[in-house]
């Protein structure tokens, strides 16, 4: 079973977020980056489990500049066999999906994995776009998968419950919590990763269709107000006038 795992680079979850150029650019100064956790913890690890169970090869793919290599190496250190980086800035989902689909066409992949969303821009459309561009099935929000030959039985998280579906390979799967368990790379894996191939391929020059005009940060939350238990009138006034809940 050959898998392609799409990995994205996102800011570390505790990073302080700010913008420049009239709030149209994310200010990366001093920001530490990580692999998108849904890609790393669930998509990549499930692909590695599938390889361990059924054989085959795990390839990771990222669309981005050379500064993304450290994240790609991490995927290799966790256990992927080889990596591909499409050498261009990632500007919108259509462009990234097109680049990945173009690469996927050159290989023989039974499964294409990615996280259910990216934790930075809440991107969740890539999987559907890749599937459409390749004309194959797309299973989103997968929290469990069993593979038997070329048939996969998958549990999907849906509102208030679980949907169980069956699908034939090849297909695209977006990974939710539960699909696998996080693996932290060990030192041996980090050293082995240096010897694994990281192929840099040129962009197929797909143009982005969407551009960002402005970012807005949420308004600061006000602090907690403590009301004396004897002062019920004040509590009622605050609930009515400030919180506007009664």
């Amino acid at each position, binding site marked *: 079973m050959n898998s392609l795992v799409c990995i994205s680079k996102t800011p570390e979850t505790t990073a302080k977020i700010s913008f420049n150029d009239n709030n149209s650019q994310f200010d990366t100064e001093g920001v530490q980056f990580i692999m998108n956790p849904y890609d790393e913890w669930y998509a990549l690890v499930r692909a590695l489990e599938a390889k361990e169970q059924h054989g085959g090869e795990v390839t990771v793919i990222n669309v981005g500049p050379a500064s993304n290599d450290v994240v790609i*190496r991490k995927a290799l250190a966790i256990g992927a066999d080889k990596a591909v980086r499409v050498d261009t800035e990632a500007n919108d989902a259509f462009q990234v999906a097109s680049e990945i689909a173009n690469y996927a066409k050159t290989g023989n992949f039974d499964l294409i994995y990615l996280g259910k969303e990216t934790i930075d821009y809440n991107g969740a459309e890539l999987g559907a776009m890749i599937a459409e561009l390749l004309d194959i099935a797309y299973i989103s929000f997968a929290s469990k998968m069993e593979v038997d030959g070329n048939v996969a039985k998958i549990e999907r998280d849906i509102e208030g419950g679980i949907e169980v579906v069956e699908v034939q390979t090849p297909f695209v799967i977006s990974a939710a919590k539960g699909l696998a368990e996080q693996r932290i790379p060990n030192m041996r894996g980090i050293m082995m990763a240096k010897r694994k191939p990281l192929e840099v391929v040129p962009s197929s020059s797909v143009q982005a269709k969407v551009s960002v005009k402005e970012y807005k940060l949420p308004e600061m939350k006000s602090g907690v107000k403590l009301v004396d238990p004897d002062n019920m009138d004040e509590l009622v006034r605050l609930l009515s006038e400030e919180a506007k809940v009664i």
Partner: protein
Amino acid sequence: MHKKVAQDKYQHHDYYGIDALLTEDHLLARSAVREWVKKEVSPIIEDYSNRAACPTHLFKGLADIGAFGPSLPMEYGGGGMDEIAYGIIMQELERGDSGIRSMASVQGSLVMYPIYRYASEEQKQKYLPKLGSGEYIGCFGLTEPDHGSNPSGMITNIKDMGDHYLLNGSKMWITNSPLADIAVVWAKDEEGVIRGMVVEKDMPGFSAPEIHGKWSLRASITGELVFEDVKVPKENVFPDIKGLKGPLSCLSKARYGIAWGAIGAALDCYDSALRYSQEREQFGKPIGAFQLTQKKLAEMITEITKAQLLAWRLGSLANDSKATPAQISMAKRNNVDMALNIAREARQIHGGMGITNEYPVMRHMMNLETVLTYEGTHDIHLLITGMDVTGFNAFK
């Protein structure tokens, strides 16, 4: 009753952009160990430290991430990494807790390293893979009840009985000893020459009672080693090393790791103090807006930055096998003292909260009192530097 554990919000601080001097492997190793510490150490460490209990389950995890002997060759159970990577791993572990770092330092630098360096090929094959994988826990016996800073005065001894040696004596302040499967022990032969050997836990006459009542490194187990007519097979004695330089070479490795490790404890204290100073308000503004708090924080990050540069340069020298024991002494002494001072200042910034286990600073502070003393005391390292620059021995 279990208290809710505060989320570990630690972020790395790199004021001088020292990360630019590190390789991809170093950064990957750092992020991996940091993730492991956030996942496995931070949620439990206050509880174990509070109960003075050793989280023994972490030995397997430390082995799995490759924290035991990362700079030893892969074929002997190591990680095949360079000395800077080793330092970075120790820094991240100590960012969690000095006791956890000690568990790894001892296994890697004081047990695996001497076996790798001095033991026969047969001994290496017998012990190193099992130590690297965490199947065996090791400890290192040099210090004695009456011989701490003066190890050459040791009275633990071996007598040649023809087909084996007979080992007698005792060792004190031995990290991991009550749990250890094997001990690397240094003892004098009949000519008074220090020899190293591997003693296994089930050898008759060998016991390792635990030392209780520590107010420091409470999550790390410490004990004695007692040898009463222990029959040590001749093949367990290291063939190629005689004299104090054997144990001292191991201490150089461990001290090197401590020079990096202490920065981790300092960074954790600084990180917590900086965040607290931005959130805690008094007199209508964050306490970080007051000059006296800024003085503390500014001095902390200055000292941390100096220590980071010292460690990085020492690491570069170590990678070229050029780091001298005296250079390692200087870094160990400076960086541990720096960390302890920062822990104390950070405790003040946290006010009353600083004495509780809601924040890591007092735990680090208490741990660092040990780190200041073990592996060569603060004063002894000063005398090593003094001797190195003047040429005069002021030890006796």
